[in-house]
């Protein structure tokens, strides 16, 4: 487990996706150990009851919570979760987009279903949560969104072109240089190519890998 560090910031409320394993789980543990409030989420909490108990066992009661959240579900569920928090006098200070997965294959041969599935979680899911949280953060004039990307989002090796594209798409959505226009991976970018005149883009389209 992590070493608790005494918080020099006031306790923040963290909303974290993908907490059933890996980075999401460890972020939940670390933020709790540091004294913050955590809403850990996963698609199906019933698959990891021991983790749910661990997070919800943090004291004082209520500091650690676990909620079912499928990032591929509609925005309504996300807004409902945030509305519920705000009705309790709370709000999300830090959003961590950790849920994600990879499908490997030849870049020329992914099926529509495979492409949609990877993008649905890695891009649409993360973006939907940002769309739900960021306006509220903006109105409060405070908030942090942490998107866990990959070296593949910068440039993917052979077999991970689809995964890299999905990460790159989310990275581009918040790309710093130039206006913050959407630049999904080609060929959908044709509509946006006019807008991308001044947008310097460092990410590799899926089929140059």
């Amino acid at each position: 487990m992590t070493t608790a560090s005494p918080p020099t910031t006031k306790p923040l409320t963290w909303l974290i996706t993908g907490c059933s394993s890996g980075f999401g789980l460890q972020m939940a543990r670390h933020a709790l150990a540091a004294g913050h409030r955590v809403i850990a989420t996963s698609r199906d909490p019933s698959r990891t009851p021991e983790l749910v108990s661990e997070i919800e066992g943090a004291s004082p009661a209520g500091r650690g919570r676990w909620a079912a959240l499928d990032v591929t579900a509609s925005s309504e569920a996300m807004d409902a979760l945030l509305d519920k928090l705000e009705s309790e006098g709370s709000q999300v200070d830090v959003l961590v987009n950790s849920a994600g997965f990879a499908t490997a294959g030849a870049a020329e041969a992914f099926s529509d279903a495979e492409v949609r599935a990877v993008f649905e979680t890695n891009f649409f899911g993360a973006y939907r949560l940002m769309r739900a949280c960021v306006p509220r953060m903006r109105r409060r004039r405070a908030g942090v969104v942490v998107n866990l990307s990959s070296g593949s989002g910068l440039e993917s090796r052979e077999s991970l072109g689809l995964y890299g594209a999905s990460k790159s798409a989310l990275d581009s959505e918040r790309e710093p240089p130039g206006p913050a226009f959407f630049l999904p991976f080609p060929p959908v970018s044709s509509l946006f190519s006019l807008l991308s005149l001044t947008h310097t883009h460092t990410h590799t389209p899926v089929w140059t890998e």
Partner: protein
Amino acid sequence: MAREVAPFGVRVLTVYLGSFDTDMSAHVGQAAAGLPDGGDAGGGDYAGSLLERYLGVFAAGPGTFPVHGDHRKAVRAIYDVAVGEGAGAGRGGEIQMVLGRDSVRRAEEVRERLDHMLGVFGGVAANVDRDEYAGGDGADKTTSADPLTQLVKQTPAHAT
């Protein structure tokens, strides 16, 4: 988005992670089509290629290749940068972060690739302006009547 919401105190931090000791790599799916043109059964254009070898590594699972990153250490670093403590002290404005030696190497490769591209095409790239803007001295001939360019001029390269 980072630039749009930064004036309102909202920060979007992207973390470029290398390979770490989670079970993500154990759950990398394989595309149903396999290697095109029967590569799996022998023959086919991709037989013996890096693509085939990477697919084989993912199919065999993480036990077959070393993973250097400790995700607990990485989470500590991400936490620090998110809250501006420890490794994140004084770095509260950073919007891009790299973690893992392999990810550092990847970023360096991208930089090298960009430098190469600029070296090869920088001359051609600068000589495709419309005639009224083309000038041997490369001077900026934009006017205040060009709103998009004026917007771009307001955007610093690295500031949030």
